[in-house]
């Protein structure tokens, strides 16, 4: 159990919102829906004045498999992070959805927030998470013929060979 999440003393009932596990992170509310609950939860929040999707991004937790998550949430390699904003109530809420590495796909939010189109394309481009039913799932930042998804942790940063490299063997073999 994370120390940021404080369950009420003596009551094992975890806090819930719209049937989804709710946790607290530095005073900010975070929802942890499953992939199946994801779109339904967002739709409920949209009806509940959360009219703007401020941000949609992802994190690759390949190198941090044992991160702290609320009880009942099994950490997967990818995590989709969605920030919703209620202009009426001046509130924000964040959703963190676990996306497994062997099936990196999740439903699109395009029907609810058209502005997520580009953000989902970016997540697809950078992490290789496929958004089902997205109207135009193509790379957005990297060139079309790019190989791999650069923000994955197992994607090497790469180097540009420089003239003054100490790798003498490589220098000599250069035409």
């Amino acid at each position, binding site marked *: 159990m994370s120390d*940021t999440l404080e369950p009420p003393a003596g009551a094992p009932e975890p806090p819930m919102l719209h049937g989804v596990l709710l946790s607290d*992170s*530095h005073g*900010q509310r*975070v929802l942890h829906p499953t992939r199946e609950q994801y779109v339904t939860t967002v739709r409920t929040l949209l009806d509940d004045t959360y*009219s*703007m*999707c*401020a*941000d*949609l*991004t992802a*994190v*690759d*937790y390949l*190198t*941090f498999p*044992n*991160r*702290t998550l609320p009880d009942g949430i099994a950490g997967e390699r990818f*995590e989709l*992070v969605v*920030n919703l904003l209620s*202009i009426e109530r*001046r509130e*924000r809420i*964040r959703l963190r959805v676990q996306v497994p590495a062997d099936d990196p*796909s999740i439903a699109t939010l*395009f*029907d609810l*927030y*058209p*502005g*997520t*189109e*580009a*953000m989902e394309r*970016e997540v697809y481009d*950078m992490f290789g998470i*496929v958004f*089902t*039913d997205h*109207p*135009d*799932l*193509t*790379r*957005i*930042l*990297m*060139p*079309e013929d790019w190989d791999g998804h*650069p*923000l994955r*942790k197992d*994607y090497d*940063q790469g180097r540009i060979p420089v003239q003054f490299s100490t790798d003498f063997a490589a220098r000599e073999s250069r035409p």
Partner: protein
Amino acid sequence: MNDAAVNDAAVNDAAVNDIVGTIRAGNEPAQGLKPRSELTARELLREVGAVLRMSEAEAAKLGDLPLDPADDQTMIINMGPQHPSTHGVLRLMLELQGETVLRCKPIIGYLHTGMEKTGENLTYMQGGTNVTRMDYLSPLNNELVFSMATEKLLGIDGDIPERAVWMRMLLSELNRMSSHLLFMATNGMDLGAVSMMIYGWREREEVLRFFQKVTGLRMNHNFIRPGGVAADLPAGWRDDVLHLLEMIPPRLEEYDILMTGQPIWRERLQGVGVITAQEAIALGATGPILRSTGVPWDLRRDTPYLHYDEVEFDVIVGSYGDAFDRYAIRLNEIRESIRIVHQILDRMPTGDYRIQDKKVTPPPRARIDESMEALIHHFKIFTEGFKVPEGEAYVAVESPVARSAATSPATARPPRTACTCGRHRSSTSNACHT
């Protein structure tokens, strides 16, 4: 997909699975516009308010058209990536019917430099040098939001010394002025008021000169850091700011003469690029774009950070959501920033400019000469960085230009820094156990 089954949900699902299957097999779709004949009515309808602007009836009519590619009387051409009207590089893929643009797909990424990937290998101390470059028009706001998110994770966000907070406000407002001045300059140039470019750059340069005096650099300052700011304000800073505050308002009056009241200027902006409040919200637009549609949303007022709740200013709101409103809002926001800076000058407290927390603050330069411990402390902080506890935080600030940054850091190095387009700056932090 045959035309009888265009709206058939089952076939649609099969098509979606098809796309997913192709992507998994390593054959990714090309970055092109799909031929209109291949779009379903449902897809066209969904795009209302997003990329495509057409009425529902029009879209529905398109769905009824026989799917005959030979009858597709449209042409797709590229504008850019090296077009004089696109500052930086941007390619617009346009679908034309005669001289009418039917659809437009912007192709971006030409300036993508992988800063998020770079950030993964930087410590929190070095992170500022990276995020400040994400948007060279508002570097101080980038640093501010990164620092605020890091401070939240460290749990020191309430302990930042007063002087540091007011200094951050001063710099962030001056940065808003310099950013909006550049907006005036480049937009004036694009719309035919070419002399405006020089005037805008001239005023911006005065602001940058002040930044240079305070931080040492015109831009990419790395001045606002976790725990406070890098140095105190230099001697004579108050006079420099007062000089700016006296110089800029009459120049803004000149802009009014050159642009605001000009019939040509008005012709070219009024009623152009109109978006409704509903569209702006659906698309996630914030800042001046959202305010131009009449939504009074300003993070400085609505979710106050720093000490914005203690200063008086107006949130400038438009009423038509057109290009003219977006211009006028920025022009008047410079005036509001001047108002805020006047109040900051009155309220600027004395005291420390960074938190005295040995965990995040390097020792003063003079101590390094006389104390071995201070030298080691300094070395450790700058080589290894400081450790940030596991957790995640989200911080949003009202930033002058369209960017929003999200960082997800771990113990010593943030494993994830992301930056997307929006109209305010924001920051998420996800930290993990090592």
